[in-house]
C-alpha cells in the first residue's frame, strides 16, 4: 500500500501509481447500473435524472437494466406498499453481488406521508440493507445524483481484505434476505430483526 502523500507527489511528476484495490473500486464505482423500476412519484424524478438535463450518464449509471440479474443498484423510488414489499425483496434477492440500495424519498425511508396507514411499509430498511437514504418528497434529481456520488465514495473507500471487507467478498455474509409472506393482518414477518434495529426512544 502506497502512502497518500507520496502518491500525490508522484502524480504531480506525471507518475501514476495505483493498487489493485483502487483500480478495482474505481471500476466498480463508475459503472453502477441501476435496476429500472419505480414505485411511485419518486420514479419520475429518477427518470428526470437519467434524461439530458441532469444526465446520470456523467456518473456511469445511465444503463438502467430491466433485469435484476444485470443490475448493481436498486433505487427504491417511492412508496413500498405491503402488497409490493415481497416483490421488492424478491427482486433484490435476484440481483448478483455486489449490490447496493438507495432509499429514495420519504416513503422509502420511513413510509413518509403514508406512515400511519395500514397498507404501507414503514421504510424499506425493515426488510433490506439500505446503503444511502435521500430525504425529500420527492427528492430532486440533484439529490439522487448526490446519493449516487455518496455511494461511489462509499465503494471507493471499501477495503477488499480483512474483517471490514465488502459483503460480496465475504462468503459468510448474507446475500439474500427472507421474502415476507402475505398474512391475515400484515405481512409476515413485518420486518427483519437482523437488519432493523430501531433505536429505543424512551418517553
Amino acid at each position: 500500500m502506497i502512502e497518500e502523500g507520496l502518491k500525490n507527489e508522484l502524480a504531480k511528476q506525471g507518475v501514476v501509481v495505483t493498487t489493485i484495490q483502487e483500480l478495482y473500486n474505481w471500476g466498480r464505482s463508475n459503472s453502477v447500473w441501476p435496476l429500472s423500476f419505480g414505485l411511485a412519484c419518486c420514479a419520475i424524478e429518477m427518470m428526470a435524472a437519467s434524461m439530458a438535463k441532469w444526465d446520470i450518464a456523467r456518473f456511469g449509471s445511465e444503463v438502467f437494466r430491466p433485469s435484476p440479474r444485470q443490475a448493481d443498484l436498486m433505487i427504491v423510488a417511492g412508496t413500498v406498499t405491503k402488497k409490493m414489499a415481497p416483490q421488492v425483496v424478491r427482486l433484490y434477492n435476484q440481483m448478483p453481488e455486489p449490490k447496493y440500495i438507495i432509499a429514495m424519498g420519504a416513503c422509502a425511508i420511513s413510509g413518509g406521508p403514508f406512515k400511519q396507514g395500514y397498507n404501507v411499509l414503514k421504510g424499506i430498511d425493515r426488510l433490506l440493507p439500505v446503503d444511502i437514504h435521500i430525504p425529500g418528497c420527492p427528492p430532486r434529481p440533484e439529490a439522487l445524483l448526490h446519493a449516487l456520488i455518496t455511494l461511489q465514495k462509499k465503494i471507493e473507500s471499501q477495503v477488499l481484505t480483512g474483517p471490514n471487507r465488502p459483503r460480496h467478498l465475504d462468503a459468510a455474509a448474507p446475500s439474500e434476505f427472507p421474502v415476507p409472506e402475505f398474512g391475515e393482518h400484515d405481512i409476515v414477518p413485518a420486518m427483519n430483526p437482523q437488519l432493523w434495529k430501531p433505536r429505543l426512544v424512551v418517553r
Partner: protein
Amino acid sequence: MESLEQIKIRLEAAIPGAQLEILSNDSPSAERSLLLDNAHAFAVAQFLRDDSLLRLDYCSNVTGVDWPDSEISLKVKVKKIVEGVEKEVEEVTKTVRPGFLEAVYHLYSMAMKNGPLILRLRTGNRVDRVQMPSLTPLWRSCEFQEREVYDLFGVVFDGHPDLRRILMWDEFKDYPMRKDYREPDDYEYEPTPHDEVLEKARRHQAAEVTP
C-alpha cells in the same frame, strides 16, 4: 331533472312494494339521497337507468360508509309535577341504533346532461347480514368500485361477476376502513410522534417492556 319527491312517486307507482325513503343531509351541500330496500334495489336502479325521462346511464361513484352501533339521545320536553308545582322538564331518552354498512351510488345522465341522483343501500348489520344486491349488471363502472367497497368495508355484493379483494391481498382478513379496525402494531420507531401516534408509540413501548 325532476325533484326527488317526483321520482319517488313515479318509482313507487312503477315498482309495487318498493320501500323508498328520502334521506336529508345536514352538510352545507344539503344533497339529499334515496334509500332503497335491498329486495327492490335492482329493479329500482334498472328503472332509473331505462326511464325515458331520467336515463341515468352513468354511475360515477360507489363508496362505502360504516355506521357502528350508535346511541341516539332525544330531548323531549315533558310537563311534570315537581314538588307540587307543574314544571317543564327536559327528559333525555336514549335509544341504541344497531350498526350497519352502507353503499352510496352517484348516478348521472350523459344523455340528458343531468344528475346526480344519489342512491343508498344498507346491510342488515355489520357482522353476518352484510349482503346487498350488486348494481354491476346495470352499470359496468360499478365493478371495481364495488370490489373496493367489499375489500375495505366487507359488504358482499350479490350478483357481482367477480367479487374479490382489489387493493389488499387475498389472504388479508380485516376490513381496514371500518371504524373498529385496528392496524398492526408497528410503532417500534417513532422519532417525532404526537397526538394519536404518541399514544400508540407509548402503548407499544409498554407492551415491549412488559411482554
